[in-house]
């Protein structure tokens, strides 16, 4: 049971609090500040903090801390998951979840918090239902509110009454569309010599379904066996999947994540990118830095949004680098070098045209030379390619007469910091 919730900004100011039961004094946050002070990195704060009478569970996202106060034994994962859900919800409502957006929409935030949690227990967390209960803010409503001074919502949500809880009865679209985004993320660690230490593929199918009535969709894969470990949206009929490896479901309205899956680690992954690096520190406060990035086995697709991040050791004072493509910045305080390359075309295969960055590193004089080279975090995106090779064969629809537009998109990407090259 969640007793209270504090939202704390980076400066350590609890600018919002919500109590579901009795009011817990704000001073409880002091324990949190204490733990915060101990950690240099905001991510290092232990998620669960025990205080003499309460237990604090916190999450850190978007430079905000959500701190839930508990008094009783409860599964901490449950609370964490719930806090993240609140954040997702805010993002859904306000487009972003920042201090500003929360402050701008205090009324709705409190309404939402009241609705999703009842006396400390989660009640409604389905976004679709909540959106009917509490309308997301928009300009028109703001104006209407100013004019009439009345913002109460008189209609009861109908979705709760549907026997398929995730879908309302009366959906109608003029253009019936169904989009499936197959997004795959690569996790990898590549060591100095270019051998793959670890690689994993994690995938999602995000859907945007705008179909009238009660459609029943079936999704066939060309190679369903690739999928190793899957978690389904509740709408998917499990038995159909188990017997025929077909995704059969009545979709919710709007955006949702149909499945998330994992590709077996045993399969080796062909890396679509390679980096040649040459980083050297020399005695006497300087060093060389040279990187060359090239595409590899991308099946003719180009790499987009290629960004290389590199956290330099503390002793680095500055980097003077000249990239052949894109632009590079160095943050001397955080010691982060960011090289934004942009798109790498596959046609420029000959090494002369490959994007490179070259330059000198200036070290703080007097400091010892760093022992280890920095680790490169690479992120990129490949459109129209699922790196695991999974493909949707066909999408069928039953139950309705109209012919919908169906679209499937493949994206391969890298979650922040999950593709690392050790140098």
């Amino acid at each position, binding site marked *: 049971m969640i007793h209270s919730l504090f939202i704390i900004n980076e400066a350590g100011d609890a600018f919002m609090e919500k109590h579901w039961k009795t009011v817990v004094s704000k001073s409880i946050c002091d324990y949190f500040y204490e733990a915060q002070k101990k950690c240099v990195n905001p991510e290092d704060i232990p998620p669960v903090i025990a205080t003499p009478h309460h237990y604090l569970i916190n999450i850190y996202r978007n430079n905000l801390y959500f701190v839930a106060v508990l*008094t009783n034994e409860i599964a901490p994962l449950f609370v*964490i998951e719930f806090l*993240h859900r609140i954040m997702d919800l805010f993002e859904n409502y306000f487009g972003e979840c920042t201090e500003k957006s929360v402050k701008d929409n205090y009324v709705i935030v409190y309404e939402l918090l009241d609705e999703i949690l009842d006396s400390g227990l989660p009640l409604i967390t389905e976004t679709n239902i909540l959106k009917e209960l509490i309308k997301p803010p928009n300009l028109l409503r703001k104006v209407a509110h100013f004019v009439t001074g009345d913002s109460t919502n008189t209609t009861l949500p109908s979705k709760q009454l549907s026997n398929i809880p995730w879908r309302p009865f009366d959906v109608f679209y003029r253009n019936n569309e169904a989009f499936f985004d197959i997004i795959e993320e690569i996790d990898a660690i590549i060591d100095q010599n270019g051998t793959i230490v*670890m690689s994993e593929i994690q995938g999602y199918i995000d859907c945007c379904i705008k179909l009238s009535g009660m459609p029943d969709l079936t999704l066939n894969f060309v190679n369903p066996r690739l999928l190793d470990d899957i978690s389904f949206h509740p709408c998917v009929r499990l038995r159909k999947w188990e017997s025929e490896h077909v995704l059969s479901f009545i979709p919710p309205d709007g955006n949702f994540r149909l499945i998330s899956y994992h590709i077996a680690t045993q399969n080796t992954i062909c890396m679509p990118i390679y980096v040649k690096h040459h980083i050297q520190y020399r005695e006497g406060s300087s060093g060389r830095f040279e990187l060359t990035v090239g595409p590899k086995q991308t099946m003719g697709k180009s790499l987009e949004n290629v960004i290389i991040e590199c*956290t330099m050791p503390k002793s680095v004072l500055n980097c003077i680098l000249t990239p052949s493509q894109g632009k590079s910045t160095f943050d001397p305080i955080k010691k982060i070098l960011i090289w934004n390359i942009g798109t790498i075309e596959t046609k420029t295969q000959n090494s002369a045209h490959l994007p490179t960055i070259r330059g000198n590193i200036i070290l703080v004089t007097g400091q010892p030379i760093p022992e280890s080279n920095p680790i490169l975090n690479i992120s990129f995106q490949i459109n129209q390619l699922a790196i695991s090779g999974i493909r949707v064969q066909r999408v069928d629809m039953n139950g309705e007469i109209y012919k919908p537009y169906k679209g499937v998109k493949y994206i391969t990407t890298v979650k922040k910091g999950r593709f690392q090259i050790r140098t």
Partner: protein
Amino acid sequence: MAVAQLYYYVAPQSEIQIVAKSLLRLLRHHREIQTIILKSIVFIADKHKQIFEPYLKSFYVHSNDSSLVKRYKLEILTTLANASNISTILREFQTYVLSSDKDFAAHTIHAIGRCASTISDVTEACLNGLVALMSKKDETIVAESVVVIKKLLQINPSQYNEIIKHIVRMVDKVTVPIARASILWLIGEYSDRISKLAPDVLRKMAKSFVDEETIVKHQILNLAAKLYVVNAKQTHLLVQYVFNLAKYDTNYDTRDKARLLRALLIQTDKCPTLSKHAKKILLASKPAPILESIIRDHDLYTLGTLSFVIGQKAVGYKDLPDFPLEPPDPSVRNVEIVTPLPSQNVSSRKSSTTTGITSREKKKSVNDENFYSDKEEEEEEEEEETSTEGPDTDNEEEEDEEDEKEKTTQNDNDTNEYEQLDAQSTNNIEPEEEEEEEEEKDESSGSSEEEESEEEEDDDEESESDESADDEKLTPNQSSIVAKPSSTLTVSDYTIPATEKSLLEMDLEAFLGASSTSTNVQVAPVKNNIFDDLHGLESLTSTSSNLVYTKQYDCLNRITGQGLQIQYRFPRTPFQQSPNMIHVELIFTNTTTNKDIHSIKFYKSKSNINIQGFNQIDLLPSGVSIVTSIGIDFNDKTQPASFDILYDNNLIPTSLTILCHVGELIEQKFLNDQQFNQNLARLRGMNEIMDSVNVDEVQISKLNFNTIQTKILQCANMISVPSTSGDSTLFRFSGQTISSKSLVLLTIQLNMTQSKVHLTINSDQIVLATMLLKEIKQTFQSIL
């Protein structure tokens, strides 16, 4: 996670594998979730290494993981390390050591140490690696490696002289106090190997003593003391000097330590006995420390709970209950309505006939005909083998005989039983003979009661009907399983054949004396008519007094038994194989529609109670019931007897528990008036307990011999004592306990004026008597 938790605690080894994948998927989520999942994985991996081994690579550390995540990942890697994957893990560790996060690097070194100590193959390699690490520039790494090496060396010191020397040379460079302390300790401990170096180190240390940290000072003192013991000549002055320095230290501990060592070593005259053993004390061989995991005592709390994460008991935390040793009451799992108490209507009568003379009438019906009441049919559709004879015919017959009975019993007692009266069993002469002897005894004693037996005969009718009426009250809508496995075709174990009797039949016996004649014809066909008559009378009296209230109890319900249903009842007949045992009939019913149950056998008795098991039943076809008998020596106690049976080649025995009511521990013992009074006089005082029940006037007027007898028989197997005084308010019953054969005498005195029923029990077994009295009292109270 909750599922993982369930799997962790409940699933068998083979199935826990599934948990791994899902947990790993969760690792992709937010940092906070990662942290907690990893902590849980650490815990699970500790117990079940194999499930995470295939996913070793998922635990490789990314440079931007949070520090907690990194630590847990390291922990998992260390736990999962084994001889086959250690090389990859160590290679990974080597990269981690170079990481810019120094704390993490230190933890990695610690982890390497743990790997080295657990996997002996790589100890050498690890040590070399660590020694190499010591030459690094970074303070923390060097310090941590020194500490770890020190621990490793302790495990196997003899081989690594070189390393020790190497470390000792480093003492000047190392500045982190704990590392310095470790080095000093090493020198002290192994000073014999580096006898040249050691005093020199002490000299250096003595110089810098004042500036050292407390922990280092302690080690310097230790070193000094040890060197003094080994090499007093060279170091005497130095040691003195160090001790003097310590004497004026600001730290209490240091001063104390110095004083202690000084007394031990230098001022030997003060404590001579101790000083003699100084060498032993200081240079005792120390056990090697075990490199522990950084996350300890995580098995105190249930996996995945708040308490588990914070490592302390949260408010409202409850431990998982232990696995129950006793299986829970199977009735909890009943989904369908199973009659909890099979009624007694017919079975009571049936078993009543099993006692006394009528037990001779053991029948063996010719065919597979099972007898069900109508209700039974309705309730259990599977059992559709019904007798061919409709209920009407029976009822008609009943009507002929007993009108009033018919009214009361028609609804529930539509017994469409079909029995061939004349089909007598021929395989049962032995027990019959035994009983005949008994009977003859009874005959002699019972000669005086012949007069009364006439009266009782009349009463019979009423008591019968009363009883059935009572039955109805007790168990409305429940009809008994009359289904008697009367077929011998399927029964291999038929030590005591089904002793069932139809209502009709018993009535016939009771009223027409037909049964007795028929038995006599069978057993002693040459007996003359006078004897026959006598027997007839005898049978009548005993039948009337033997009205037994037999209940059936479930001991294995058909859902838990996978279609095998076992009920038990107390037929109240002596157990043939041992007179001290209580005869319990087990009714095995196969309630499945199409599955045969094979080889049901008695496995073993679980409690200390002596149980005579039944022979193996080879086959129990679907829908068929078989009755077998077992004997249980309850030793005059009401503790339940439990035993295991095996069936259908199941390896796991199914446990059955038989609960014995106090009344079942008693068997009938016939006493005449005179004997009764004699024994009563003997069992006075301590052996007598009394109680009284208040009843209202209307009800007390209803109490007569029959009603009282019925009630007594409901709770105890006792026989009435013929009264000669003619007092209509005094009723006496007698019985004896089955195991110890001690008498139990019950006297019931009705007090008409005060509307009270006085109950008195006289018995040696006073505990038993108390329980019996309580039960009788309850019976009076509940039924009145």
